[in-house]
């Protein structure tokens, strides 16, 4: 341990470039050919396979694995991508341990599932490396569809619509497409600029125009889009971040975990990215884990996740929790933030222990902190949207909103888990419904 790691405050260059490179390398390194064959051979080719049922995009997993086992990973990729055009990213970020791999009969029998996620990555990497786009556009329909948001839901919707012969314009508020794939997940899950490469590859279908820097309610309005296009799909995600609502919550050093992750993902040089010595992340989801682990990998000395309920109730999967702990992140549960102390910048953050119903116990403690990340959920910026269901856009069936001609999917739509794979399924299904509506 050297002085740079012990130095207090938020500062850059806590670790050598080599340590940074190692820390931020691929979380699950890709299989080589032989490893893929060995892994594929473990699949039992189950009848009516539970893994496929568990997949939100219903990929025919036994079929694609058999295609890998027989030496045709490109065919395997087509099987995957025909259900999930972002199969490459989902192979990297899906919580497979709570989806397909959880119900794999070999997980049930032996505690060691077929590694479906890594096999999916093997197949999709192969087809992308060969720059094959396995789908063709249908004859032009003359219909035009606006897709708001170039995240997983919007991209999946746009691709399926383009494939059906419609002309699509994707509008995104950010300077780059990809949504959370590009800005919102840990770097070690999407190495070598994968999110951007995947979007480029996806656009290879043709018929999709991407317009960045265009936000709903800023450069465009829903009314305007409805008037200009034959249909509109809203896949705009959750733009707002929930506030802490406690004393000192706006002190210097307190920021949003999603902004930290986004900056990190876009950073040219990780050594130039500042991080605190004592980092506290408040929250219990994937974002909390992504922020905490990456803070640790940047060289923070002490990183603590504090979650207000018990560890079993954390939204982050057990795999993610264990990953954080393996990287040296401490997880404190049943504690809720009460105040952020400091003179200008944060010095300490005070918590109170709670039981599982969030009833305070009266017992308080303080953690030293020079950087605090809020990861207590994101919210929809709701102005000018269709009818809501709770805090999200109400949808019926395949993403139909209260407004005729307007569909929605992904995190901004009510129902479903806030997962990349769920967003892809919703975008795809809305596209099918839009197509059916437009060609009726």
């Amino acid at each position, binding site marked *: 341990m050297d002085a740079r790691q012990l130095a207090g405050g938020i500062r850059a260059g806590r670790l050598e470039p080599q340590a940074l490179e190692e820390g931020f390398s691929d979380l699950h390194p890709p299989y080589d050919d032989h490893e893929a064959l*060995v892994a594929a051979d473990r699949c039992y080719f*189950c009848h009516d*396979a539970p893994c496929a049922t568990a997949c939100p995009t219903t990929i025919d997993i036994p079929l694609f694995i058999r295609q890998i086992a027989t030496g045709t990973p490109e065919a395997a990729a087509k099987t995957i991508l025909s259900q999930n055009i972002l199969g490459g990213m989902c192979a990297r970020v899906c919580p497979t341990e709570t989806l397909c791999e959880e119900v794999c009969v070999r997980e*049930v*029998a032996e505690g060691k599932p077929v590694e479906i996620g890594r096999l999916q990555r093997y197949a999709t990497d192969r087809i992308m490396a060969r720059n094959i786009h396995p789908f063709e556009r249908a004859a032009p329909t003359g219909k035009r569809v606006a897709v708001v948001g170039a995240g997983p839901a919007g991209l999946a919707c746009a691709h399926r619509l383009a494939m059906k012969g419609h002309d699509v314009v994707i509008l995104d508020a950010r300077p780059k497409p990809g949504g959370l794939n590009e800005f919102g997940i840990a770097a070690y899950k999407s190495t070598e600029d994968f999110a951007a490469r995947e979007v480029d590859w996806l656009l290879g279908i043709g018929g999709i125009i991407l317009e960045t820097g265009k936000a709903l309610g800023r450069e465009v309005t829903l009314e305007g889009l409805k008037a200009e296009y034959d249909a509109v799909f809203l896949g705009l995600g959750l733009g707002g971040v929930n506030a802490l609502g406690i004393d000192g919550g706006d002190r210097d050093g307190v920021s949003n975990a999603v902004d930290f992750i986004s900056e990190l993902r876009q950073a040219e040089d990780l050594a130039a990215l500042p991080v605190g010595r004592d980092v506290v992340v408040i929250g219990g989801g994937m974002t909390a884990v992504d922020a905490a682990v990456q803070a640790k990998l940047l060289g923070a000395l002490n990183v603590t996740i504090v979650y207000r309920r018990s560890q079993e109730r954390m939204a982050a999967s057990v795999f993610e929790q264990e990953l954080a702990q393996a990287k040296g992140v401490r997880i404190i549960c049943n504690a809720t933030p009460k105040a952020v102390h400091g003179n200008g910048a944060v010095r300490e953050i005070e918590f109170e222990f709670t039981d599982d119903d969030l009833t305070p116990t009266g017992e308080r403690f303080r953690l030293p902190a020079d950087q605090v990340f809020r990861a207590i959920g994101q919210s929809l910026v709701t102005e000018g949207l269709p009818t809501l269901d709770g805090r999200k856009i109400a949808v019926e069936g395949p993403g139909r909103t209260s407004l005729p001609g307007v569909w929605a999917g992904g995190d901004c739509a009510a129902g479903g888990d806030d997962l990349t794979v769920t967003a892809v399924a919703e975008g795809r299904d809305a596209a099918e419904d839009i197509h059916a509506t437009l060609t009726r």
Partner: protein
Amino acid sequence: MADLTSDFVGIKSPNPFWLASAPPTDKEYNVRRAYEAGWGGVVWKTLGEDGPPVVNVNGPRYGAIWGADRRLLGLNNIELITDRPLEVNLREIKAVKRDYPDRALVVSLMVPCEEAAWKAILPLVEETGADGVELNFGCPHGMSERGMGSAVGQVPEYIEMVTRWVKQNSRMPCIVKLTPNITDIRKPAEAAKRGGADAVSLINTVNSITSVDLDLFAPEPTIDGKGAHGGLCGPAVKPIALNMVAEIARSPETRGLPISGIGGVTTWRDAAEFIALGAGNVQVCTAAMTYGFKVVQEMISGLSQYLDEKGVGLSDLVGRAVPNVSDWQNLNLNAISKAKIDQELCISCGRCYAACEDTSHQAIAMSDGRVFTVKDDECVACNLCVNVCPVEGCISMERMEVGATDPRTGKVVPAEFGDWTTHPNNPMARAAE
């Protein structure tokens, strides 16, 4: 630890595991190391007549088929008999036998079908002190094109003739190695016996093309764009070999003729199966070529443990299963079984369901929660579900009690034995006494 000492047609070895005549036994260097590793005996790679040695191809001589994790299941070769001078081989055989008197050393021979050729080579072999000779009437490639190997093994009259020459011109035990590339293995075995053979060994390799290069459109192994059939060995051929060994062991004409079992012996269990079907010992090649000489140590410990657990000696095991090898017409049609799925062991993969529903008797039901159960009123006990189930012991065949009613046929399970020979549907049925 059980005594594995073996006496095969008077040839003694500390265990019944011999290396078959093949590349592993081509030279002194290998054979010494094989003995050191624990092999009970070797059959020296086939010698040809004196003169310029045969030549081998200078491209690939092996092809293969694989199972999961590239486990080698079958090996095909187009290698010929030894390509080293006769005199060198004989000198090495003599030296090795001198240093390892307790190990079996049998010399494989293949010379033209002329008595003079056999008369010439037999004294030379005898002079080395070797324990016996094995006549290679089995190799199906290359040498067979020149009228030797399987070209002899496919004509019983030639087998008998050559065997007789060997027995008349040598005092050594003579083992005749048979080719499986025939229709009825009993005929060549009978011929060998008539010629005076002390034993037969089988099987040699099976004619095969292991695969086709789909870019070159040529069989594997491919040499300069062409391929020729080779001989297949390894685990893939074991079922063929077991049947042929059993046929000879139970045939009235050849019963009692000592058999050296060959064909895919990879573990002690394979060896025990050959021995139970009548083999006095076994010969191994592919397992050694895949894993090295050390595999014999597992074979020794495994067979020894098995014999200890059974409380029998090696000689008691020989042929123990032969009386139970029967003809289809003698199988008990009144032995009625039903498949039963152990729900505790079932992992709900549904393979039994897919197999039965799509390709058999639609006798497995799939219900909510992926629960699979056998429909006794449809099950014919075909065993396919057992065979495709990935969990050993999960599905079993349970025999119905005498007096119970088979829900499939509505008939009561009879107590008495009843086979096809007495079945009412058999027009040739003998009247029951």
